[in-house]
Structure formats: structure tokens, C-alpha cells
């Protein structure tokens, strides 16, 4: 803004400023009333939901999420109540979704890759201690089942128990069992009450069940004799526990063998000096251990190389074959001399309309050596091991993927071909170019400009085409003498699945590490390819 030269200029400027502001207010007041109302109502709804969410979260004491929700709500109100920030108004919803569903998920997977999260390490240390203590309590074999009435006296609970032989005793957490004779009993001989104590009904027991379930009444002064506990409030059993947790130094001691299990700070579990580990453990950060394991473990490193090579071959061949066939058909059906083109086109797209998941299963059935359609009908009953021979299985995978994938390429190429102006072809023909030259030198480069990005994304898709592999061959056939659970047609993603999920044990940490490795590979290939595509555009 220039400096006003004279008083008059300054006045004029003030006036225009004022009038501009007036105009803006007038506009906001007249045309914008309805918009303003809608805006207030919508933001009101959003704020109401946020406040509800905040209440729920505060109750759960989830402070990080509370902060996030509060912050996002404030930002949103600020954006939509201000008069500028038009771009932000359009971008905010998308950005919020991006943060929640993409950035957070990716970031979390990245974090998991640096932990030992998986079977046996899926919670906190406190949970692990609790689970170990609970499961180390063992009912004394063949011990009696005691009839139980829970008593209360000035806030302290006691067990009134009836032996199978009719002896009635009472005891609490602090005083061991002692025999009593003055208890009231019911018709079956089970003691139901004692003078000076209140007998709890089941509803009272349920209301205080955490205290009662945690109660253990020693049967004598010697702790090795065990103690009575109740799992259901109506009967008590004699338990002995062999694990003792010391909160002071964070160790577990087996009281019957005397072995001390200590937290070594690395594996997220209690480990004895002999190396014996107590499970469950808990989740800890392990640094790069998962990545080291991925490359350093013999059983993974060996197959990793051959699997990576086959993954690249499979993805590349899939793209090339489907694109080749799709392009060929597109050119054929793009020729105006062809009759009934629409019917053919519909037929061509049919495999695309079928769910790929199901198609792969159907193909697996059709390729059955003895009963499958292919051998029975097409090869006259020959016994060709389509899915159980290493190379035939690889061929079958690419063939089925061709069947599944060419309609997509066909559609894409048809569209791209139709967008190439026919004048170019006419001009080339007039210049004396033969059809093959027209295709190779003019149509294909023009086509590639628009199709190349799709080819790259198709490569990335096939690189991780888990469904097809899993449904058709399951990664097999396997070489049983190799001793690792990786088959001839396993690609990286299906190998990762097997490493992490086959069997009962899960290893989310290792899987996340693998995902990151695969992501880096795909990203690298994509970046290089997109660079090449740019060169293609310059050629245009």
C-alpha cells in the first residue's frame, strides 16, 4: 500500500476502506443469512458430537485422544467461522480423513515394526503378571469341594465352609481356618450363618465379586498348605500357587523350585538364568530386531531371494501379458470394419465382472489333474499336474491372471485409442507409413502417455496380488526337502503371510517390518517408472 500524499487522499482512502467493509457486512447480512444458518446448524451438530465424544473419552481417561478431538474441533470451528481461508474450508474434511485413515494407520504399522507385538506379547507387563499369577494357582489334585457361605463382619469378608464330612470352619484372609460348632445349617448340612456375622446373598456377592474372588483364606499357619478360594461364590476349593511376584524388584519366583525369573528388559518376558521363559510376556520396543530377523534368519533369508525374484517376474509378466492381449483386442475391436463389435466387447468384459476371488477358486477346480475341466475336456483325460509342478504352477498363475486382468487393459486401451485423433493416422498414411509403422511409431507412444501410469499401478497391484496366489495354489507346490514353509509360487506378500500368520502364533512386529520392506520395493520401482514416463511425455 502506498503512503497517502495529502490529507485529502488519506480521507478518500479511509472512506473507501470503510465503504468496502460496509459492503462486505451488507453482503454477509443479506445473501448470506441462509448460508450462515446452515453453517451454524452443521457446526452445532459437529460440536455436539465432539462434546459427546469428549465426555466418553474423559470417562475413559484417554487423554491423548481427548486432546486430539478437542484440537480438531477447535481448528474446524476456527476455519469455518473465519471469513478467509477458503482453501482450508475445502481441504479440511479430506485432511481429517487422511490423518485418521492413512497417516495414523501407516504410522502405527511403522511403530509395530519396532516392537515384539505378537503371540505371547500382546499387552502390558501388569497384565502379564496378573495372567501368570492367576494361571499358576492350581487346585490341589483330588482335594475336597467345600460348601461355602460368604460372611461379612465390619467390612471384612470371611469364608464359612462345610467339609464334605460335615465339619464347619470359618476363616478370613488374615486368620486361617478354625473349626466352629455354633453355625446354623440348612437341610443338607451346609452351614449358612454364624452368630456375629452377616451372611451374603448371591446378589451381595456379585456386587463385591472382585474382592471376594481375590480373597484367599489360608487353611493353616503354614502357607505351603495352600488356601481356599472360590470361583463362583457358592463353593470353595483348596489351591496352591507356585509363582510369587515381587513388585519391589519385578521378579517372579517359583516357590516350589526356587527359580527366580527376572525381566531382562529386552525380550518383554520373565526369563530364568537358564534361559527358560515364562509366557505370556508383554509388548516392548525391540529396535531393529525384526528387520535383523527378516534378513538374518536362515529360514527367511534363503527363500527371500528366490521369492523376490519370482515376485518381480510375476508382476512384470502379469502386466505385460494382460496389456499385450488387452491392447491387441482393443485394436481389433476398434476397427470400424469389424461387425458386432459391441457384443464382442461385452463378452470380453465378462471375466472382469466376476469377483477375482471366486474366479481363482473356480480355476483351481478346473485345473485339478484328474477331475478338472482342462485336463478332462481340453486335453482328453491327460494327467497334467497344472498346480503341483513347480513350472506349470507358475505358468498357471500367470495364465489365470491373464484371464482375470486382460479385460481391464482392454477397457483402458479402448478408451485411450479412441482419444487419439484419427487425423494423425490419416496424415501418416498419406505420408506413406505402413500400418505397423503407424502403430509402432505413432499410436503406441501416444497410447503409452495416458496408459503408462496405469501400467505402473497395475504392477504395484500385482506385486501384492495375495488373493490370486492364496486361492489358486496357496503358494505351492512346496519342496518338502527344503524345510521351510515357502512354495514355488509364493510372492513376497504371501510369504509374509505364512511367516507371520500360519499356525496359531502371530508375529505382528515381523509382519510390519516386512510390510515396510515391500513398501520400499514398490515405491522404488514406481519412482523409477514414473521418471521414465516423464521422458515419454517429453517425446510427445
Amino acid at each position, binding site marked *: 500500500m502506498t503512503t497517502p500524499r495529502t490529507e485529502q487522499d488519506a480521507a478518500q482512502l479511509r472512506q473507501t476502506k470503510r465503504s468496502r467493509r460496509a459492503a462486505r457486512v451488507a453482503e454477509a447480512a443479506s445473501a448470506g443469512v441462509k*448460508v450462515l444458518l*446452515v453453517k451454524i446448524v*452443521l457446526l452445532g451438530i*459437529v460440536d455436539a*458430537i*465432539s462434546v459427546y*465424544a469428549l465426555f*466418553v*473419552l474423559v470417562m*475413559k481417561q*484417554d487423554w491423548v*485422544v481427548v486432546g486430539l*478431538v478437542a484440537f*480438531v474441533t477447535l481448528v474446524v470451528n476456527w476455519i469455518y467461522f473465519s471469513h478467509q481461508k477458503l482453501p482450508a*474450508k*475445502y481441504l*479440511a*474434511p479430506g485432511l*481429517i*480423513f487422511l490423518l*485418521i485413515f492413512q497417516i495414523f494407520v501407516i504410522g502405527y504399522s511403522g511403530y509395530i515394526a519396532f516392537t515384539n507385538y505378537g*503371540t*505371547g506379547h*500382546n*499387552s502390558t507387563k501388569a*497384565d*502379564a503378571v*496378573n*495372567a*501368570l499369577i492367576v*494361571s499358576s494357582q*492350581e*487346585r490341589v489334585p483330588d482335594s475336597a*469341594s467345600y460348601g461355602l457361605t460368604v460372611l461379612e463382619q465390619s467390612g471384612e469378608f470371611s469364608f464359612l465352609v462345610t467339609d464334605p464330612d460335615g465339619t464347619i470352619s470359618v476363616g478370613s484372609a488374615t486368620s486361617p481356618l478354625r473349626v466352629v460348632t455354633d453355625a446354623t445349617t440348612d437341610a443338607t448340612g451346609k452351614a449358612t450363618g454364624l452368630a456375629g456375622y452377616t451372611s451374603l446373598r448371591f446378589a451381595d456377592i*456379585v*456386587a463385591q*465379586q*472382585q474382592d471376594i474372588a481375590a480373597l484367599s483364606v489360608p487353611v493353616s499357619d503354614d502357607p505351603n498348605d495352600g488356601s481356599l478360594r472360590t*470361583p*463362583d*461364590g457358592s*463353593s470353595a*476349593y483348596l489351591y496352591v500357587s507356585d509363582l510369587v511376584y515381587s513388585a519391589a524388584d519385578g521378579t517372579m519366583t517359583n516357590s516350589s523350585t526356587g527359580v527366580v525369573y527376572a525381566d531382562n528388559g529386552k525380550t518383554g518376558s520373565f526369563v530364568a538364568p537358564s534361559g527358560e521363559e515364562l509366557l*505370556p510376556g508383554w509388548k516392548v520396543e525391540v529396535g531393529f530386531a525384526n528387520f535383523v530377523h527378516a534378513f538374518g534368519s536362515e529360514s527367511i533369508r534363503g527363500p527371500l531371494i528366490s521369492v523376490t525374484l519370482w515376485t518381480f517376474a510375476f508382476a512384470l509378466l502379469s502386466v505385460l501379458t494382460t496389456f499385450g492381449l488387452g491392447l491387441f483386442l482393443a485394436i481389433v475391436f476398434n476397427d470400424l470394419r469389424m461387425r458386432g463389435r459391441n457384443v464382442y466387447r461385452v463378452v470380453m468384459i465378462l471375466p472382469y465382472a466376476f469377483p477375482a476371488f471366486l474366479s481363482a477358486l473356480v480355476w483351481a477346480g478346473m485345473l*485339478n489333474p*484328474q*477331475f478338472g475341466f482342462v485336463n478332462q475336456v481340453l486335453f482328453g483325460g491327460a494327467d497334467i499336474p497344472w*498346480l*503341483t509342478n513347480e513350472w506349470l504352477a507358475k505358468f498357471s498363475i500367470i495364465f489365470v491372471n491373464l484371464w482375470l486382468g486382460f479385460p481391464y487393459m482392454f477397457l483402458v486401451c479402448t478408451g485411450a485409442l479412441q482419444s487419439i485423433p484419427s487425423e494423425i493416422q490419416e496424415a501418416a498414411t498419406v505420408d506413406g507409413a505402413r500400418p505397423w509403422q503407424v502403430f509402432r511409431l505413432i499410436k503406441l507412444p501416444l497410447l503409452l502417455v495416458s496408459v503408462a501410469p496405469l501400467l505402473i499401478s497395475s504392477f504395484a497391484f500385482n506385486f501384492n496380488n495375495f488373493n490370486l496366489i492364496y486361492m489358486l*495354489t496357496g503358494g*505351492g*507346490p*512346496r519342496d*518338502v*526337502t527344503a*524345510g521351510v514353509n515357502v512354495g514355488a509360487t509364493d510372492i513376497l506378500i504371501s510369504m509374509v503371510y505364512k511367516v507371520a500368520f*500360519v*499356525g*496359531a*502364533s502371530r508375529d505382528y512386529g515381523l509382519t510390519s517390518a516386512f510390510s515396510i520392506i515391500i513398501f520400499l520395493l514398490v515405491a522404488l520401482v514406481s519412482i523409477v517408472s514414473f521418471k521414465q514416463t516423464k521422458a515419454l511425455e517429453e517425446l510427445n
Partner: protein
Amino acid sequence: MMVKKKALLAAGAVLAAATLALTGCSSGGAASTASSTAAAGSGSLTVWVDADRAPVLKDAAAAFTQETGVEVKLVQKDFTKIQDEFIAQVPTDKGPDITIAAHDWLGNFVANGVVQPVELGDTAANYQKVAVTAMSVEGKTYGVPYSIENIALLRNTALAPAAPATYDDMVAAGKAAGTEFPYLVQLGPDADPYHLYPFQTSFGAPVFGTNADGSYNANDLSIGNAGGEGFATWLGAQGATGNLSLNVTSDIAKEKFLAGASPFLITGPWNVPDAQKAGITVAVDPIPSAGGQTAQPFVGVQGFVVSAKSKNALAANEFLVNYIGSEKVQTALYKVGGRAPANTAAFEAASSDPITAGFGKVAATAVPMPSIPQMGKVWQFWGVTEAAIISQKGDPVALWQKMTADIQTAIK
């Protein structure tokens, strides 16, 4: 102005959804938050159950509520997803108090510390022994069983009037029937150890040895013993003669049996209704022994387990032991699922059906599928080796020993 309004509307909707999603992410749904906070105060149980069993449990839950005042909330879940969800949610305090479970999940549950032992007390005698053993890990019972499931020999009585005594009898009877296959058992490219297991045990080669209390001993890998080698040799011979074919997948085996292409099919109760619908009169017999000893199939037991972090442990135990375990509820569960009840009295009643009685008779001699976590390492080598032996890809005994060594390495 129009554009702006639309954008605003969209923005509002998006934001509302996003806020809800964010809350949802952190709490696993507002509903479950409400239920678990209420549970601590007034005494209520949240139970995960699959769609089939929910209606039956509803009655048991109502009776329980009436008697004890403890409310029972049933949450329907997809059975196949319960194992992973339970392990994921219990540590975050959002899991249920009780969930329905298959016994072979237990090793995993215990290794993750998400379940607590259940004391059946004197009621343990009310269940079939194999069911209680299956629900136990290292001698401690972790669940209340409600059903038992296993495979047996399904016989088309029109083609084979008598039950075969041995494997050779079965093959002979099958050949005498003049059908396409002497007998059928489902295999596939990676064989099927589950369906071949009865033959394996008939050679005296279980996967793991057992401790005195009937639990499996992970340190005693007995699959590679002399009996295992005998089984491997036998498997190779059956593959060579074509009695066993990897091309017979589960679909083909069933289809061929329904079409009358064989008098025998080794399968579970799940295929019986279809066979009866196809007009076949079926009988259920014990699986004939191939190696001389009793052919013991695996038994799968289903039941209910209590979460390690349940704040209502007493009520949960009471509900399971005295209501789910009762003959009435077990009979009702049998009627919807068709699986033999684990409660002995309920099983006696259900045995009036000859099919249930037949499978139950086989179950009495069967063994629980190992639920120890080490079992997960066995499957990946077991099937492919059997497949290699059947398809004559090497010396059966050498392949079998290689497999045993691989499993041993994987377990360590």
C-alpha cells in the same frame, strides 16, 4: 454461494463421521464402553456368541438373570473371527467376560494370557472325559465344554451292508461294490493330515506324547517314531495303488459319495445332512484300523471361556458351570448345532439318533486335537510331506524323518 453451501454440508457430514470414527477407534464403540462400566457396578455379563447359538443362550441368560439378578448381554460375533478379536481386545479391557471358543484356540489364549481357569469342581464328572481334557492346558481347565465333533466312517448301506473291521476289509468291500472308488477321504494338493490322522494313530504314531494327566507333552514329539515310519511306508503304498489320490479334494470327495461312486467316506457330521438329502441311507461306523491299533481321529471340542480381565469372574463362573453346563442348555445347543453335547446326560438323550450315537461312539476312543501352541508349527510340514509321499516324490521313510527334524527345529 450454492457451491459453498454444498461444500459446507459435505464438510459437516465428514467431520461428524470423523469425530465418531476417532472416538470409535479409541473405545471400540461407545456401546461396549457403556456396558463394561455398567458391569463393574451392578453385576452384568457380556458374552460373545455366534449367530447359531445366540437364541439358545438367550433362554439360559434369562433364567440366570431371573435367579441371580445378574444381567447377561449377548453379543453376536462371526465365529471365525472370535479368536483374533478376543486376543486383541481383552488386553485393552474391551473384551467380553465370556466368549464361545474352540478348544484348539486355548493354547494361544493361554500363551497370550487372555483367559483364566474355570473350576468345574464336582461337576467335571458330568462331562465326557475327552471334552474336559480338551478344555485343559497343562492340567488346568480353562473352559466349560458344550459340544464334541469328530470324523468317522460314513457308509452307504445300499452299497456296503456291513461295517468293515479293518482297512483291508474296507478296501475289499469297496472293490466288491464295484464303484469308482473303494473308499473316499478328502485330500488335496497338500494332503489332509486331519482326515488321515486316524490311519496314522492306528500305526501308533500320535503327534505328541501325553503326560500322566492326559495333556500333550510338547517335548515328546512322537510323530517320528517307528510307528510313524510304518505309516509313511503304508501311505506311499496306498498312493502307488491309487487308493489315496491328492486330486480328491473335499468338494470332489463329497460329490462322488453323494453320487454313489463309493460306499465309504471318512468325514464329519457336517456332511451327513446332504448325504441324507441325496437319498442315501447312511450308517456311522468307527474308522477301520490300518496299522493294527485303534484308529483315533481328532476330537474338536467347543465351549465357553472366561476373560482374564473379567471384573465379574464369580458371576461368569456361576453362569458357565451351573447354566451352560446343565443338561437342558446342552440339549438345546445340540438341537441347533447338531454336534454331540459334552454333558453326559444330554449326550445320552441325544444318542437316540443313530448318527449322533455313531459319531459319539468314535469320539469315546478319540483324542483331542492338541491345543498347545507348538501344534501350529506341525501343520505346515505335516500335510506337504504326506502329499509328497502319496505322490511318490521320494522314499517315504526319509521324507517322514526329514519332516520330523523340520518340526523339531521349528518348535525350538
